[in-house]
């Protein structure tokens, strides 16, 4: 019943505020584009985190859902003119359906077997995507990829000439997924998923329908990932099966979440921001050295798995708590 002016509330609010203001101070579309990508990757990592983090099921094939969302919405857009805004919902739902189709048989598998199965599904899906040039009379482009029609400034179709709307859209998506994760963390489903991650047999004995809970998690994760795919499709406007449904996409999502701290609300966000920025910087700074930036990427993942398996969140959490305490202390002092 205290007032809301405690650091616990105003610090996050401040952060969101800063993020909202950024486009006012940064005019460079490139920086905005990169920042949109950063937020986007953080979003994808968070979406993966629902099944990979909370439920502890290591999916290595999330590229499939990005592709599903991207292709479904873009095909509807190109062929029947359906706005990607609606496409987001349909793309997300199709991805969720795919998540259920993939998850139903595979989620019975544990640990490494599940990971392998998701790799298998993703690879199979990618190969099919490459070999399918037409669905009915709709061209998917096969390996040539699919060009999303460019309409210029068409807000009703999620297309903008400026990068600012894309930035805000990514920010909104990220806030939604963080809000969702926050809710999930405190909800029945979240408790159930965590219980499954910690000990599936014990969870069963507590009356948890573990198979269903995992499936719901998989569907939710796929849904959000699919929605992300729709965003990607409108931002990049070119869908290439290998880039979008391939191992690089799938692995990247996982790496971000791991480095950030899987199973936590903000870990994947932090991981997404940290690694994407590092990736971008190394790529620009050392572009004359082939492979360096991915090498560093790999090394960072290795270092984190070895030394900080719970992720960056661990490093951020304590200083943040301290800051909150410090600010809290000051306020109290000031008040008295």
């Amino acid at each position, binding site marked *: 019943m205290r007032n809301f002016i405690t650091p616990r509330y105003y610090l996050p609010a401040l952060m969101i505020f800063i993020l909202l203001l950024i486009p006012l101070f940064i005019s460079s579309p490139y920086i905005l584009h990169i920042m949109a990508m950063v937020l986007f990757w953080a979003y994808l990592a968070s979406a993966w985190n629902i099944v990979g983090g909370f439920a*502890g099921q*290591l999916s*290595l094939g999330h590229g499939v859902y990005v592709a599903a969302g991207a292709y479904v919405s873009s095909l509807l857009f190109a062929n029947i003119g359906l706005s990607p805004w609606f496409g987001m919902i349909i793309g997300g739902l199709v991805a969720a359906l795919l998540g259920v189709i993939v998850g139903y*048989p*595979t989620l*019975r*598998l*544990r*640990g*490494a*077997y599940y*990971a*392998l*199965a998701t*790799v*298998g*599904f993703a*690879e*199979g899906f990618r*190969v*099919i995507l*490459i*070999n399918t040039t037409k669905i009915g009379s709709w061209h998917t482009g096969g390996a040539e990829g699919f060009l999303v029609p460019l309409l210029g400034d068409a807000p009703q179709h999620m297309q903008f000439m400026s990068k600012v709307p894309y930035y805000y859209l990514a920010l909104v998506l990220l806030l939604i997924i963080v809000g969702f994760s926050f809710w999930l963390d405190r909800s029945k489903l979240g408790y159930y998923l965590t219980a499954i991650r*910690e*000990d*599936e047999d014990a969870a069963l004995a507590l009356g948890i329908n573990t198979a269903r809970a995992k499936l719901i998690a998989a569907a939710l994760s796929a849904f959000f990932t699919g929605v992300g795919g729709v965003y990607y499709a409108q931002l990049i406007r070119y869908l290439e099966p290998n880039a979008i449904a391939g*191992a690089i996409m799938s*692995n990247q999502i*996982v*790496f971000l979440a*791991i480095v950030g701290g899987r199973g936590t609300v903000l870990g994947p966000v932090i991981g997404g921001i940290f690694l994407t920025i590092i990736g971008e910087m190394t790529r620009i700074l050392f572009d004359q*050295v*082939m*492979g*360096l*930036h*991915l*090498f560093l*990427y*790999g*090394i*960072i*993942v*290795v270092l984190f*798995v*070895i030394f900080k*398996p719970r992720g960056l969140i661990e490093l951020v959490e304590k200083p943040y708590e301290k800051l909150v305490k410090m600010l809290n202390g000051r306020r109290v002092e000031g008040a008295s």
Partner: protein
Amino acid sequence: MGVLSSIINGILMGGVYGLLAMGLTLIFGIMKIINFAHGAFLMVAMILSYWLWKIMGLDPYLSIIIIAPLMFLLGYLTQRFTIKPVLDAEKDVREPIGALLLTAGLAVAIENFILMVFGADYLMAKTAYSGASINISSLSISVPRLYAFVTSLVVAFLFYQFLIKTELGRAMRATGQDRGVALLMGINVSKVYSIAFGIGTALAGLAGIVLIPFYYAHPSVGAVFITKAFIIVVLGGLGSVHGALVGGLIIGLIESVAAQYMTATWTAILIYFAFLAFLLLKPSGLFGSRYEW
């Protein structure tokens, strides 16, 4: 005749796949880790073998003497300094996947390290026998593939003998069957892990060496083979050595024979479906059992 040719070819390639999968299955059987860096190790061996051939004129098959121990060492050190700490930290975790992630990270790091150092060129050791073939009427058998196949079989045989007959091989199997009791038998399990990872890596290396006279090495060549190796070990049963060999032959045959009736890309899809079917319906594979080792 065409079918016969493709059967022969399938068997020859299948042997090499089997050799690669054997290392993967060994590491899983003993350490319960799926090594996502297996393909990267294969690539390293291919590149090393190529450069030894290129610079010193060393025939790839002779370079085994140098590269196999080197790969063993690489695997040994990788396990000792990267995987071991992760395994130790995850001892009490019910389903440890840290090691799996670690190997995935390692794969990315190794691939790009090689890219940085050696560049991305496609390399193939063009030996005297590289393009040679044995022709019996319209049937032709590729000589380098034949060599690769025979080598794979010999290595598989030796490896099997090693597991059955030697003290260390026995200790490895024991560790795979029951790590806890292996400790009580005076087996230095941590060292056995390192050796197993070393041997697994060396097997990947051998597969790389036999490939280099007819296949092209480049930093991402591992990806071509690693998925196939995953499929094979699941088919043969994770942890099963002969399963890996048989699985390799099956995949080789499917690839070769099925491609006569459909396009090569659809063969790939067919194989993925077979893989998923096995994972879902018979995850223990053809030969796997909990007591494999």
